Each structure stands twice: as C-alpha cells, then as structure tokens.
C-alpha cells in the first residue's frame, strides 16, 4: 500500500493565512518573548514555548447504527527550561497571562540562580518542505461525508460473509496547529492534518469467535479513501481476516525459521531496533546499543532508516515538536550502527547533530526522542525465493503490535500467520507471540526481499506514557530462527 497521492495537491499549511506566531492563540510576539525571559530568570540555559490548538472529530458505527459522534478541542501551552541535563516543565490550558507566567516560573525553577542567558530576537521561519498531502481537508468536510465513509466500510464487512456477526467501524480526523518558540530566536509553526478509518470484524462459527482488523489514513485528506484505500477494501479486509482465522490452527511452539510478510512486519524493526536507537536510552546507557555506535551488530542485509519526511505518511511532519526540520536518518547500514534518533536534550549532552525526532503527545508533555516512519531497506531476493528456501517454518502475515525492553528482548504479536511446509504456505495460524533478543535476530536475518512496503497507516507508538502516530515498513525477510509462542 502506498500513501502518496498526486503532487498537485495543495497542502493545508500553505493554504492557511500567514498569521504572526502566537496571535492565533491570543498572545503577541512581545508577550511570548517576555515569557521566555521569565523562564530563563533563574539561570536556565535554554527556554522554549510550545503552543497547540487541536480539533478532533470522531464517528463510530456499531450494531448497524451510527452510534455516536464526538468533537473535541484541546488548547494549551507548555514551557520548558533546560539547565545542563535537567528539565523544568510547566503547562497550562488557560492562556490567561497570569497562568502562562506561572507555567514559565515553574519551568524556570529547575535552575536556581540569576539569569545567565538572554532570549534572542524571535525570527519566524517557514518549514522547508511540506509533507502533508491534502486536497479535501477533513476538518472542513461536513460530518455527513465522514459518516458515509464509516457506513461504507461497515457494510462491506457486514455483507462479506455469513460468518461475520459483529462489525465496528470508526473514523477519526484531527488538525493540530502548533507553534514552537525558543530562546535562540527560533519561531516556527506547523499545521498537521491526520485522518484514520478502521474496521473491526468479528466472525463466529460453532461457538468459536475470532476478529480481523484493517484500516488506513495518514497526513492526507478525505480523497485518500477514494484514490488510495477505499472504505470497502478496509471493511472487506477486516472481514476476510476474521473469516480466515475461524479455520486457523494453533501456532506451533518453539524455535523455528521465520518469514515475515512485507509491510506489517515493520513492527519488528520498530521494536527490535528503533526504540533502542532513540538517543535518551543511549545517553543513559540503558540501551544495549549505547556502546555499539560504529560497530557491526547485524547481518549485511540490514540497513535501517527513520524518515519523517515521507509525504502523506502517518509518522511524518514538517518540523518536530522542538521546531527542528527533520531529516531522513540512517540508523543501521549493512549491519553497522550509524546513528541515534535525537532530540535537543540528548543531542546537546551527547554532542551530536539534531535529527528532528523530538516529539511529544501534546502540550502537556516535554519532548523525547521518538521514531516517525521506520523501515528496513529492500534486498535482492524475490519473495518466492525466500519462501522456497524454508522447509518447515512460520510465516508472519499480519501483526498487531509489540514491545521491547532496553536489554534488547522484544516481542511482537502475530494476529495471522501460516505454516510453511516444503517452501509453501499451508494452514493459516492464529494468534501467537514471537520473542527474541534484538542483536541475535539482526544477525539471523538471512534474506531480504525486493518488495519493500509500509504497513497499515494506523499505528500509534507508546513511550513513557506518550502516544504518537508512527508507521513502519519492511520487505519480505527471513530470520533463521526465533521462538514462537504457540501451543503443544
């Protein structure tokens, strides 16, 4: 699946009037500079203001009815002060001057002394490129259009098969208007669109039930559901998976060769590699990678990037939540660790360049290093060759999520798999968890396909209580062995 739409599309942020920063929030530039001065009044090295206004719409269909709609508004400001490796943070969702000053003073208190740094003159900056692809902005469309999308996905799933007993379809869209100003004079804004349509279908046969899930979206407009992925496909795919799983067998248990389908299996790269190359875990030396920069940890076939600049993708942005222009970042090249995903705090302490991966859930959190769109580069083998090379093994068709800890132990949950017998896919297999240690698994990647794809544009990553949208990609991959958590 490819989320990129025609380059003719006009982006939201170019269409919006060039209002001065802060004014959209009822604060003028002089006020904001005063807030930064106040934030530095106890001797901080750096101060930053993050302003956010977010509008969000939601439509939910279940039990054959449009059950509810919701609208939400979030408005607020966070002030951050850095002093060495220390962070002071205050936030408020009341932009009255006294509340904003209080947030600044709270953040300022991380340092204890006299002001040492002055705030530079604020120079508004435009983001270099625009990675959003919106022709029909969801926030300007009537609710009726969104209801129609939900209904179409719902009904496609419902009529797909008689075994489908329940369906749930949900549409969400949001528009985040953010601004970042800091004491170095940076001032930048970004208006981020997001849409998502998902469908859950439940099948039943002889008292046994299973579910299937499908969906899509990204930093796009409603045209995506006509041009790239239709609601009908979303509904049918969810139902298809639910019906397949009814006939599926229990997963095998123990170590065996694994083949990962392209796209979805990017979750493996996200968990096994991405998180542990986030700079904070390496600065703190808790990640298994902290002492491995420049060292070879995986097979030659492994080249991994994180690229927040892929047009239209869910993990993309024009500037990160610290106002940094992001760049495509090489993490692992032919098995060798090349870099970390940086935010301002870690980059400063590690004396490395910014990569534009400082992200936050919303104004009430300080930014931390996060992934955006993470993927493993394509290889040379055809998917058929890869499959043919496995006599007995496990094929991972779709994944529902994963988790990792700093030691490199990671898991991912397979929602649909297949047995591989004699180089061919045979019986469908239901839910199983796979577990491994990242540096073992990276060494065991034996073949990489030429078929790089990204997974569903519906993913959300959680870290330290903060959720951010992400996407992952990978080609067909063969891992010589991993532990499959099935039953005997």
């Amino acid at each position, binding site marked *: 699946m490819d989320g990129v739409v025609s380059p003719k599309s006009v982006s939201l942020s170019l269409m919006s009037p060039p209002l001065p920063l802060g004014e959209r929030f009822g604060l003028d530039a002089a006020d904001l500079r005063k807030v930064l001065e106040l934030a530095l009044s106890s001797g901080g090295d750096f101060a930053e203001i993050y302003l956010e206004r977010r509008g969000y719409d939601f439509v939910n269909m279940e039990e054959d009815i449009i059950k509810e709609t919701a609208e939400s508004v979030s408005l607020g400001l966070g002030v951050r002060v850095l002093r060495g490796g220390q*962070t002071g943070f205050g936030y408020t969702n009341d932009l009255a001057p006294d509340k904003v000053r209080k947030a600044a003073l709270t953040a300022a208190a991380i340092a204890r002394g006299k002001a040492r740094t002055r705030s530079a003159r604020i120079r508004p900056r435009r983001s270099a490129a625009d990675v959003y692809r919106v022709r029909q902005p969801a926030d300007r469309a009537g609710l009726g259009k969104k209801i129609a999308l939900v209904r179409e996905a719902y009904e496609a799933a419902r009529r797909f098969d008689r075994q489908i007993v329940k369906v749930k379809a949900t549409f969400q869209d949001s528009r985040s208007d953010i601004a970042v100003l800091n004491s170095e004079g940076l001032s930048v804004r970004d208006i981020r669109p997001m849409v998502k349509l998902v469908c859950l279908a439940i099948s039943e046969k002889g008292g046994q039930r299973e579910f299937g899930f499908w969906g899509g979206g990204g930093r796009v407009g409603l045209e995506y559901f006509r041009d790239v992925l239709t609601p009908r496909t979303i509904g049918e795919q969810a139902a298809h998976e639910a019906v397949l799983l009814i006939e599926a067998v229990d997963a095998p248990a123990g*170590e065996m060769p694994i083949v990962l389908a392209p796209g979805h299996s990017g979750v493996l790269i996200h968990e096994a590699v991405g998180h542990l190359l986030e700079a904070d875990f390496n600065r703190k030396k808790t990640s298994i990678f902290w002492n491995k920069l420049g060292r070879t940890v995986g097979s030659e076939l492994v080249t991994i990037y994180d690229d927040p600049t892929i047009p239209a993708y869910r993990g993309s942005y024009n500037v990160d939540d610290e106002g940094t222009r992001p760049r495509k970042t090489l993490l692992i090249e032919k098995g060798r660790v090349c870099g970390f995903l940086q935010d301002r705090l870690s980059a400063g302490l590690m004396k490395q360049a910014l990569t534009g991966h400082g992200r936050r859930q919303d104004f009430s959190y300080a930014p931390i290093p996060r992934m955006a769109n993470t993927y493993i580069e394509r290889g040379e083998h055809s998917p058929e060759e890869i499959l043919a090379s496995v006599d007995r093994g496990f094929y991972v068709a779709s994944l529902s999520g*994963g988790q990792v800890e700093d030691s490199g132990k990671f898991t991912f949950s397979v929602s649909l798999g297949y047995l591989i017998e004699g180089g061919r896919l045979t019986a469908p297999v239901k839910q199983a968890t796979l577990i491994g240690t990242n540096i073992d698994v990276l060494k065991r990647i034996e073949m990489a396909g030429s078929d790089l794809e990204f997974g569903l544009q519906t993913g959300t990553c959680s870290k330290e209580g903060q959720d951010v949208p992400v996407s992952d990609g990978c080609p067909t991959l063969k891992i010589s062995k991993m532990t499959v958590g099935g039953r005997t």
Partner: protein
Amino acid sequence: MRAAAGPVRDENLTGLAEKLVSFARKCGADEAEVSLIDGLEFDVDIRKGKVEHLVEAGSRVCGIRVIKGRRTAYASSSDLAPETLCRLVRNAAKRAELASADEFAGLAPLSKKTIDPGALDLFDPSIAEIDSKTKIRLALETERIALGDKRITNSYGANFGTNEVRSVLANSNGFAGEYRQTYCELSVGLQAGETDDKVEDSWFSAKRRFRDLAPPEEVARRAVERTVRQLNPRKIRTRNVPVIFEPTQTSWLLAFLFGCVSGTAVYQKASFLAEKLGQRIGNANVTVFDDGLLPGKLGTRPFDSDGVPSQRTAVVEKGVLKNFLCNTYAARKLRLESTGNADGSGVSPNNFYLEPGTATAREIIGATKEGLLLIRTLGHGLNPVSGDISRGAFGLWIENGEVTFPVSEITISGNLGRILNGIEAVGSDLEFFSPVTGPTVKVAEMTVAGE
C-alpha cells in the same frame, strides 16, 4: 508551600456544569450531561542523584454528552472559555441529529441512593502540604538506597508524583455530584548485569494517602530484589508445565478477565464469555469482585461517569459467572442493571480483584515439583474474542519446590477459559497496589515455549 494552588476549591464548578446542562436543553437537547475535571499534577524524575525532569501544572477538561431523539453526540474541551463550551454544546445538539436513533441511548435514571464521598477516604489534604524539597528527597533517597547494592549497574531513575483531582458531574435527570481525590506514587527502575546481559525491573508504591506510601527503603529493596533475581538467565526447552503467577502477573490476568466481562465487550460479542452468564467458567477457587466502595483504595469512587452510585458486585462466585460489569448503556442493551462501571462512553473497573485463598506464596511454590514462576511479561498477545493468551515471559524455574534459576526469552500461551478452570491454588497475598489486582495463583498447565 502550595496549599492555595490546589485545584480551585471554592469555585462553583458544579454550578458551571449545571448551567451548561440547561444551556444544552435550550439548544434542543432532550437530555444532557456535563463533567468537569480539575487536576493538579506534580512529578519529579531524578536519575543518578540529580533532578532530571520536574513538572508542575494544573489542567482542566470538560466533557459533554447531548441526546436528542435518542441520538447521541459527545464533545470535550480543555479550553474552558465560555464561548468555546457554548459552541461545543450547540454543535453537539446539531450533530446529534446526524447519528442514528438508538433505543438504548439515554442518561441513567436518578438514583435514590447517594454515597458520601467523605466516607470513602479518597482525599488526603496533607498531599497539598508536601513541599517540593521533600518530594525530590524521597525520589533521591529511593535511588540512592537501590544503587547502594553492588549488583545494580544502572538506573532508569526514581520518580515521585502526586495528583489532586476534583471531579464534577451534572445531568438533566437532576444528578449533581462532585468529589475530590488524591494520589501519590514513589517508584524506581533498575538494571543489573553488563551491557549485553542486562536485566531490568522496577517497583512502586501508589496510595491515596501520603502516610500510607511505602518508605524509600522498601521501594528500593523490592526493586533491587526483583531485578537481581533475573541475573544469568537460561532458555529452556519447550514444554507444558504448571505456571505460578506472582501478584503483579495475576493483576494483568485479571485485567484481561475484566475486558471479557465488560458489558461493552459482551454486547459487541467481542468476548468469549458473552453467552456464559450464570454458567460455570472456572473452578471453585475463582471468586472475583468489583468493588467501588472499599475505603481509601485506588479504584474507589462515589459514582461512575453516568452518575450511578458505586457498589460491590460479585463477578465470579466459586467459578460461576454472576454478573457482567456495565455502564447504563451496556446494561440496557443486555437487559441488566448498571453496576456503576461507566467511564466516559465505555466501561472500566473499580477495585476488581480475585478473592485471596489461604496458602502463602512460599507454600504454593513448595508444592510444585516442576514449573515456572512467572515474574514479568512483555508484549500484548491477549485476545478477548477467543480468550487466547500468548506473551513474552520472564520467570524463575521451579524444581522440587525450590526456585532454581531464572529463565528468559520464552513465551507462555494458553486460554483464559482453560486457565480459570485450571487454577489449582490461590495465595493469601492480596495487595491493592493497583485497582485491578489479585494474589499469587497456580495454573495447572500452560505451554512454555523456548528452544
């Protein structure tokens, strides 16, 4: 001292909620409900003896539900400016017309019963009196004690946090109520071992009253013990064995059970227990309650988000499924009574726990010839539709009643239905360290996959 900076105490938030409810009625709503949450958060992370991150802030959110001709619309806002709130109410009243008529939609009828929040012991005024230095010192002290153990090689840091929250709810059936609650938590996360062979774990204490919080020594000691016992793990051969769940693990098993007895999952047929009301779903060792009235506990509250008074509900009694846990909507769909579990438009647990038995954890381990003591899990792998479980696991191997060595890079798998029927022993060690909890339990057999 910040006593005066707590959630605004004297402001008439209930009055504001009631005004918005009447405004919604004027905008054409048949029924309306408004909630207001006013919170104050303090949070300090320290690491390697230094303050790393300090947050202090107040925030508010308003939730709105409007019903018109049995059609529902929701709205929420963190911007409490009157013009924003009025616009959201007007929009919701209009938007409701676009939803479908739903005969089950509607507010809860006004209950004759009211519960005095004061009797539930949810609020500790002393939390507002703790100064920042004390909070920082508690975190520093906890980490310092933990790092004093030579086997600990790195720290994720220690955290001390407090929350004070005022919750207000009013609706057009005449309900108006509010309560205040406090929460404090002290935690530390640790690593042991060298870079390529690290193990990690953490411990915490979370309470409503500051004086009930475990002291730094205890939090540090338990975090150290939990971490170092995993050093030098082995991988084991794939096999079927008894699995003993530590209380932290019983806790997720219970959370999974909650997901399967939630009225929402049941009417959506998204639970393998959907048709099992009144039937045996486990053996006689399994008795589970949901209790919103236990004084001072983390899951206690006087009323749910529909304004329904909290109660104690038997969920499973000696293996028989007695009740699904419902909000007003799910109860109407299932022709049951609400159990006071509403949370926004969904359902959440109050204090949801497995009744303890009489054996100590040591006795349960002692009676196990060969098996796995499950101490941590990684990943999701829980499917309420089928009851299937498959998760990454860390544990201690048991042979002849003794813990012998740690194991890692394994998975456990089974099915919740079979697990509930195979609970051989239930420990006496129930602690309410979180709202969903249980004691040590021994499950007769699960598949442990390794090599």
